[in-house]
């Protein structure tokens, strides 16, 4: 029980911290202001799911995969609803998960001459980055093929130009 309470407290703090960090990155990458709040929420939600995975001792790779999958799915849905490319939202949402720390640690071990540790950390970093990329990629691919299908169906009419997009947004939102 105590363990659970600890975890919940940690999750809340991490959610806020990840959201603040994501907003910082969003400003740095010049995301449009209207996408700031969804980006921040995505960043927090993805990181909390990652923490949950780590708590269940799934390991960093599987936990990152889970977190990034959540970011990917929610990001694609939110992007449909807001009619903007999903890339912007999923990029910001995945920032707290990106293994920048592992990359830094790898190079630090190399600088210190601890090559074995460096290689081990480096391989894990690459796997985590791969897991995030795969999760986001699958979400994007599914959304794209589903969107194309809906688009074609809607486009049967003569004025399919606007109708297709609107119909797509309605179906998903």
């Amino acid at each position: 029980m105590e363990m659970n309470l600890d975890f919940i407290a940690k999750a809340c703090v991490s959610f806020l911290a990840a959201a603040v960090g994501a907003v910082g990155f969003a400003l740095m990458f010049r995301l449009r202001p209207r996408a700031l709040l969804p980006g921040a929420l995505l960043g927090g939600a993805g990181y909390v799911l990652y923490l949950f995975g780590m708590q269940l001792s799934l390991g960093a790779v599987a936990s990152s995969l889970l977190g990034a999958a959540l970011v990917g799915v929610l990001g694609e849905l939110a992007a449909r609803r807001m009619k903007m490319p999903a890339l912007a939202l999923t990029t910001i949402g995945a920032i707290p998960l990106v293994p920048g720390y592992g990359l830094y640690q790898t190079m630090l071990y190399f600088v210190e001459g601890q090559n074995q540790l460096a290689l081990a950390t480096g391989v894990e970093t690459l796997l985590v980055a791969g897991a995030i990329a795969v999760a986001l990629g699958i979400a994007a691919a599914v959304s794209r093929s589903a969107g194309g299908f809906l688009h074609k169906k809607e486009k049967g009419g003569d004025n399919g130009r606007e109708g297709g997009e609107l119909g797509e947004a309605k179906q998903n939102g």
Partner: protein
Amino acid sequence: MERKRTREAGCSRETMERLVSLAARLLLECGAETYRVEETVCFIARRLGARDAQVLSLPTGCLYTLVDAEGETFSRVVRVYARSTNLSTIEQVNDISRGLVDGRFDEGEALVKLEALCAVPPQPLWAGIGASVLGASGFAVLFQGGWYEALVAAVCGGLASLLSRAFGPALLPSCFHLFLSGALSAALARISALLRPEAGVSAIIVGAIMPLLPGMLITNAIRDTVSGDLLSGVARSAEALIRSAAIAAGVGVALALWRV
């Protein structure tokens, strides 16, 4: 449908070339994915009546060959020297190319809109510093830091952002300011630990260097590789490695000097 076709045939080669090159350059400079650059070039060229379009896009530039409606072939190279991440410009170029393909506006309007995007002023100094401060303090807390660590990391983040402005890519190779920022963050973290011995030095350092790290670059590198853009994937990985090596070397040098 008929109206569309006559307009396609009427599009001049210069217009096609300017539109395609401008869109490719904007996307590359703002850090768009490889497939997006190639698709945009192909879509725009086909919409303007090209019979065939072959594109090869790399992080440092883009080569394309188009066959126009009269069957004439022409090739161009778009070389890009400075790259950064600008999500709103990617979004807007995407909107413009979609609008062109959907027929929402014609090539003249698209060209005007793209040229307006080129003229957008760079981010003001305070916004860059503010973003860096927010990012650094957020990540210091994420890596088990308290308010003190977040505060010091925020100062380091702001200084790093200033440094990257002062030593722009025109003056020095871009990894030089990363080296300096890494060294500065490690030194400040150590000094702050003198004032408050229980401070977590590693939380400060990691928080401060997080905004500098090429985490997004390496994720995009893997995404490129997985989707078959092998050259771009390898090139982006190399860039990510060099950047993180520069930061780690800065931190390493500062920590090593501290011990002496």
